[in-house]
Every structure is written in structure tokens, then in C-alpha cells.
């Protein structure tokens, strides 16, 4: 696979480390009354959809960016690649 890094251009997938569902970015509020349940869901209940999936990849053999890659799990087609940081609106 080739991942089109937003800063570095097309890079081979072997340069990356895969983590999984991008919902891992949404860490629950530890002060919430339901924190225990929230963290359990955050940690263990992930979607594994056939089709489009937003997932986290780490460019470990590159610039160490965490990327959010939107990939079709059936066709491996990649439709969007974002810097994880910019997805939270902190940098553009």
C-alpha cells in the first residue's frame, strides 16, 4: 500500500506502524462519573467496519507523524490522509 503523507507525499506502507481505529484519539474525560465505563468502551469496544474506516498510522520510519488514514477495508483504497494533530483543529 502507499500512503499519501500530507507533508511528505506518497510513502510505502512499510514505513508505518499501524495502531487501529481513529476513535482512540477521543480519550474520555477521566473526571466523569461514568469514567470507568467510558474508558472500558474506549479501550475495548472498537468498530471494525467492512468499508470506509478512519484509522491511525504512525510514520515511525519517517517524520514520526501520527496520521489518520481513511481507508476502505475491502478495497484498501485510501481516500484521505490527515495529520492527527490537524484533525483536532490545532494546526493547519
Amino acid at each position, binding site marked *: *500500500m*502507499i500512503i499519501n503523507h500530507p507533508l511528505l507525499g506518497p510513502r510505502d506502507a512499510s514505513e508505518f*506502524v499501524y*495502531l487501529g481505529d481513529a476513535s*482512540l*484519539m477521543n*480519550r*474520555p474525560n*477521566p*473526571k466523569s462519573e461514568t*469514567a*470507568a465505563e467510558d*474508558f*472500558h468502551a*474506549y*479501550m475495548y469496544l472498537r468498530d471494525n467496519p467492512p468499508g470506509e474506516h478512519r484509522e*491511525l498510522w*504512525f510514520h*515511525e520510519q519517517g517524520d*514520526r*507523524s*501520527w496520521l489518520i488514514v481513511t481507508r476502505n477495508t475491502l*478495497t*484498501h*483504497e*485510501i481516500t484521505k490522509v490527515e*495529520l*492527527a*494533530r490537524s484533525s*483536532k483543529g*490545532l*494546526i493547519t
Partner: protein
Amino acid sequence: MSLINKNIPLSFTFDGKSYFGFEGDTLASALIRNKVRLVGRSFKYHRPRGIMGAGSEEPNALVEIHADGVCEPNRRATTIKLFDGLSAKSQNGSPSLGFDVLAINDWLSPFLSTGFYYKTFMWPKAFWEKVYEPAIRRAAGLGKIIQKPDPDSYDKGFLHCDVLVIGGGPAGLQAALDAGRVGKRVILANDDFVLGGRLLSDPILINDKPSIEWAQNVEAELRSMDNVRILERTTVYGAYDHGIFGALETKTDEIGGSGARMVLWKIYSKASILAAGATERPIAFANNDRPGIMLASAVRTYQKRFEVDPGVNIALFSNNNNALSTLHKVLIDARENEFVIDTQGRKSLKSIRLNDGRNIKADCLAVSGGWNPNVHLTCHQRSRPVWDEKKSCFLPNINSLPKNMHVIGAANGNFTMSEVFESVRLTGKALGHKPADSPPTDSETYEVTAFWHVKGKKRAWVDYQNDVTAKDITLAHQEGFSSVEHVKRYTTLGMATDQGRTSNVIGLAILADATGQTIPETGTTIFRPPFTPVPIGAFAGPHKEQHFKPTRLTPSHKYAEESGATFVETGYWKRSQWFAKEGEQGWRDSVDREVITTRGSVGICDVSTLGKIDIQGKDAGAFLNKVYVNSFKLLKPSKCRYGLMLREDGIAMDDGTSARFSDTHYVMTTTTANAGTVFRHLEFARQCLFPEMDVHLISTTEQWAQYSVAGPNARKLLQKIVDPEHDISNEAFPYMACGQVTVCGGTRARIFRLSFSGELAYEIAVPTRYGDALIRKLMNAGEEFGVCMYGTEALGVMRIEKGHAAGNELNGQTTAGHLGLGGFVSKKKDCIGKVLSQREGLIADDALRLVGFVAVDPSDQITNGAHFINIGDDRIATNDQGYMSSVAYSPELGHYVGLGFLKSGANRKGDELWAVDFVRNHHIKVRVVSPHFVDPDGERLRG
């Protein structure tokens, strides 16, 4: 225009006999040239077999290539380019190819049908592993592996192109030319060592001249273009995502030659054009596997390209008009209801019997059951081919091709030359190649009548390589295996090294007939890479032995080598394990001495392998508060602190110390093993969880050489090294202080007053390039104190004596509470893992707790991995009380000490238990003690 150079004879041996061939021959054509007909024995029935094909589809002629006591098995004789001195041997014939005792399996065949092993060798059960399986394994199978290292080298390479053309026949040549002429970067991969494909075999005219002239002109033009690269003898074996292809280039078949024998290419293409051609299929009829029975196209290839005749009396059995150009004496035309119903001749074909009762003398029978497009690469991303009734074959499904792939020529079912050039032209137009008009060529037609199987009582082979007959397929159906995927696995149809190139479609047709379904209803099995076998050595490439993974050497490596170190691999690092001195009888002598010297005076250990992460920014402290359970935000500059890091699920991930150099600058250390994963975890926290924080990270593990100087004389030694303007007295530089100093007259250094050993100790770090010089300076300066180097074993002994957790304790199952570090977890702040670490199962009253153990009888040896059982209880898993995680002999105490996890361990000091070790059959009584065996109050490290 001969493709055989008779001026260059090449000598070779087959089964020890010497022969000659010519340059341009394959091993197969050279064997035919020398009238060798019997070349192997079949997989299961040990039937005599000859050469059947002329290319990579060959199922029968598998041979071993030998050289210098090593051999490569299962090579297709049809794809080995003959070279001088080639030594080849047949397979699966014992004691000899001509007289094979296991040929008795052929007479026993009524008992050896599909599923025979599963049905027969059931009793007694214990016999399977000891008797049946070894005997069956000896009898079955093809080549044998020689258990020696492969003497050859293999390489890997990466290529990029605009257009990858797969196949060097007429379609591929013209497509490459069109793309090359418009300036595209083109790679043309051809699995043969001559370009031309079927033009080499068939009497075709292009521009009214033998088509081979056209092919050679195109080749010359392609070779003149800088933007075109021709890869010869290169098989594209897999089509992967996003236009990436795997290809294997065979540089030479010679074993042990110079240079890489094969190159594994990873090709990145913007577009691909599949021109892989088609494979002829045989027809199933009784005894259709005798030497001399060949594919019609192969017979033509030997006749025209290699200028040898596979037989004198050649009969042709065909269901189509394409095969008629094969030179033959007798035609058996399946379209006219003429069939071959049996054949005679055990080691070579002698005659054939027809359905009209005729017996025909023939030493070669050319068979054509029609053509199968080589659709494999179109299906590697789960496309399924579609059945074409008229052409009686599966065609690529153009609606689900791999992205940017185009299929042309025979691979697309374009079996006539005019269709071939038209398909090239259309694809060229689609790709913007401005294709020229197609050259004028013969008016060919392709007319085929579906015909698969001459039914009869005798065995008719479908899969030659795995000895699967038509009867096996119908039997599988009778026994309930009707799905094509089940039939494949039950009968092994198409599961040999040729992956059913010549057999799968016939097998499907016979299955369809048995089930009453159509062929498209029956469907195909899934096509998977590789298209043809790829040696494991090619996948490994140069990454073998010491090159399999990198080796990282510590800054003191050279000095350690000179000092007699034994090294141990920790991750990629080679660390000094111990330093043997003259007279020491074994590792324990050295380790004990290193511990005693360090605890008695001073010892030095290279700790550069610990991960070092530089953390800077306004929010560096707040960031550390998030990743460590304990607080770092309030740590004063010039101070260090021990930190414990959790995974988000609450399990301990890593530990280490972090030092604060300024308000905005920390340096974290991690364990050696986790340096990479911790860094990745921190980047995840920084970029994905807390991107609002102003903090930056960089790994500096390899930038600093760091030594631990430990022992009561550590300060005295360091004072000789650290420049005098830096005060490192106990008052100015107390326990857990850190600072930037200079050493040896101006070299910048960092110094940390940390102790893993429990002694008065410092870690001193200099830029890596000074690491070798510093260790020599330190050792010289320490001479007056009797300093020693100590390795990872002594380090381990001292940390166990002190009760410090390490990798054995941070084992992915333990929490801060288990480690006895529950009090470290700050109640005032959140951190990664804090919420889930409080799950009830992890904080149960009887949760495991790290404690110390000594043997009740001090002369007993404690063993690592032993499980604790209360005295009086049965030694069974349900009574398990925990396990011993780390063990060492303490030279200071004179007996073994252990660390381990014990249920309710904190409340059980003084209890006696069994430490049960079934692995070593060593069970001893142990007593629960504090894990801090040496200097429990920490007076030494503060001294």
C-alpha cells in the same frame, strides 16, 4: 534466424549421464534433443513422467539442480536456461528413475484414491505419528531439501514506472513500444529469456515476414529507448494494492556463482498492462500422462524455436483449430467425435487407441483442449474471472480489475493476431499512447468446442503434479465435497507447485458435470500470489544471518572486547554480560566478583542502551504528569525522579527516571527493551491525545554514552574526572541531583545521581563520540580503587538484591499495585492508565504483590518461574498462589534471593510456602521476606 546457437555447445549431466545441448536451449529442450523421455516419477503413484509443456506451466518435469553438495529441488526443466556444467537430477525415483520400487503404488492405485490416508491409517491411533506418517512422507512428495545453508546470494530492488507491461509476447511488445514512443517510463517484464511469446512457436507472418523478425525489430527499438527497461527472465508473481507488483528476476540458474542469483523486485506502477498470454490445457483421457504426451503448443515450441522433434510419429488430439499448425502425422479431432480412449507404453508412449477401434503407433501425442487466459494477476485482489461460453475459458472480469490495470492479448481472450493488436491499440488509446496502426498479420480464427474428458474406466489424469485423476474428483463429489474449494482441498487438485495451471479448469468442468451445474455456477477457487514459486531465499534477499537485523554496539564495546567481555543480545544491542578474568571457572565467578568489587569499592557499567528521550516545551512537566503515574510537574530543576508509566488499560508499561534540567526541559530514560515503544507511545499521547500541549520530543538514545559508576568509592573516582569547578560533594550534589558539567578538561557532560545497584552511584553521560575515551579514563582513574567493569548479570544481581522491578516484573500483566508501587500513583491528577488500573479485578484484596523470597534451607537453590503453593495444599493450578519472577545468588548474603508475585503478598511476611517448579522438577520451601535484601533503608545510596 535461429534461436539456437549450434556453434556454442553446452555440456550438462542428467542423473549422472553426460549430454550436450546448445546455447538457447532450456534443460527441457536439451533433454528432448538427447532423446531423454523419462524425466521424473509422479508424486503419489510414482508413474513415469516426461516433459509436457515448454514454459512455466510444466507440471511433470521437475528436477533438482546440483552443485558442490547442495541442491535446489522442484525446478521446472522447461524454465532452466541451459548452461555449461549444469548438473540436474530427476526426483522421486528410487533406487533409480528407470527402476523405482515405489512404482508398486501405481498397481495399488485402486486402494490409493482420494482421501485414502484419512480413511485408512486410523488404527491404532498411536501408529500415525511413528509409523504411518513417516512412511507416507518418504513415499510421497517430490524434491528433497538438503539441510544446508543456501550458498547463493539474493538481492532486492525497487523500481518505479509509468507503465508496467507484464509479458513479452506480441501484445506486450507492441504495448511497450506504444508507451515508450510517447516518452512514458516503461518496464517490460518477460518471464522467458527471449522476447516474442507465441511468435517463437507459431508460424505467423507480420508484415508478410516471419513474425520473429517483427519481434526482434520491436525489441531493438525498445532497447534504444532510455525510458524503457526490459527485465528478462522476470516473472511478475503478484499484484498488490495501489499499483505495486512483486517480480522475481532469475539472473542465473547456476548454484554458487558470483553475484545475486535472483532479484526480488518491488515495482511501483502508475498503470499496468497485463499481457501474460494464455496457457494451453490438456484433455483428460485414460493413461494421458505417459512420457511423450505433450501440450500441442509445447510440441510446436520444440519444433520451431528449439529445432528439435519431440517425436517421429506425432499424433495430434485437439478440440480446436489453433493446434492444427502443429506438425503431425495423424489428427484425432475431438470436434469430429474422434477421441483417444487409451494409450500404451510404460516409460515412453508407444501407441494410442481411438474410440473407432483403431490402434495408432505414435511416440508423441500432442494434445490441445483449448486455451486458458492467464488471468491470475487480475484476480489477486479478489476479482473473479467470468466464463466465456464461446471461447470456452475464463476471462478477466473487466469490472473488478486491480486499479489502473489493463488486460490485452491472449490474457484477455484475444486469441488471434488481429484481435491481439486491436486490444493493444484500444488500451494504448485509453492510456494516451497514440498507438500506430496495427501491422498487417495473418487472418487467424480460433474455434473451439468445449471438450474436457474422455470418460472411461481407467484413470485419466487431471492434475499431473499431485496425481489427481478424473475419478478422484467425481469420488469427492460422491462423498459430499461439492464446493470447488472443498474439492480442491480434499483431492489436492491444483495445490501443487504449479497451482493447477494446466488442471484447474478441466477439474472444474468434470466437477460441473458431476454436480449437474454449469462451469460458471461451479466457479473457480481463489487465485493468490505467487503466480509461480518464489524461493524463500529471494524473499529474504540479503537480509540473512548477521544482516537479518541490525547490530547496535555500545560506546564501550571495543574496550569491553579488549577486557574479555561476553556479550548478550538485548534487542538489537550487544551488551556486556560479564567480564571473565583469568582463573575464573565460570560466569558465576565473574559475576560474583563484579558484585563484590562494586559493593566493596567501585564498578562501572555501560548503561547507554537505556532509551533517552529529550522532552522540551512550556508544557513538558504537564505532559510528563499525563504519561507517568507520579507527579513531575513540581519536580525542581536539577533533580531526577523515578517514574512509572502505565498503558491505558492500567498495566505497567515501562519505568525509568526523568531528570529536569530547566523549567522547560526534561530528559526521560526508558528501559532498553522498550525505548522504541515508549517513544511511539509518547508521540501518540502528544499528537493524538494532548495536541494542545506545547511539548516536543526527540530520541537521544544514540547521542549519549552513559556509564553508571557505583560503589562507595564512586564519588572519589568521579572527582578525578569531573572538572574541579563542578562540586559533586554529597552536600552540593545529593541523591537524585542532576546537572550539566564538564569532564576531562572541558568536555561537556551530564551527571545524574541515580542508583539502580543501591550503592552510592552516578550516571555520567558524554556525547557518544567521547564514549570510548571516557570509559578508558574512568578505568584508569579507578585503578587505585581496584575498579571493575560489570555486565548485565551483575547489574541484575544487584537490582534483585535491592528489590527493584525490571523486565521480568514489568511483564505486561502487572499493575502499579502488583509491583508494590501503588503509593506512587498520584491521587491529585489524571494519567494514562489510571482509570482502568482501578478495575476491581486488578485491585482485589488478594491481588498479587511483589515480595522477596529466601529458601528456608539457605543451601537450596531458588528457581525462576516456580509457582507458590501453600504448605499442605495439592500442587495443582487451582491452588496457585503466584510465581517467582527473578532469582539471583547474592554474594553479599551468601545465598539465593528471589523476587516474586504472591497473592496478598504484603500481609504474608514470614510465611513459608512451597516453590514448585515442575519444569526442573525442583520443589523447595521458601519464606516470604521484604524484597529489599540489601541496605533496606537506603543509607548507602544517600551516603
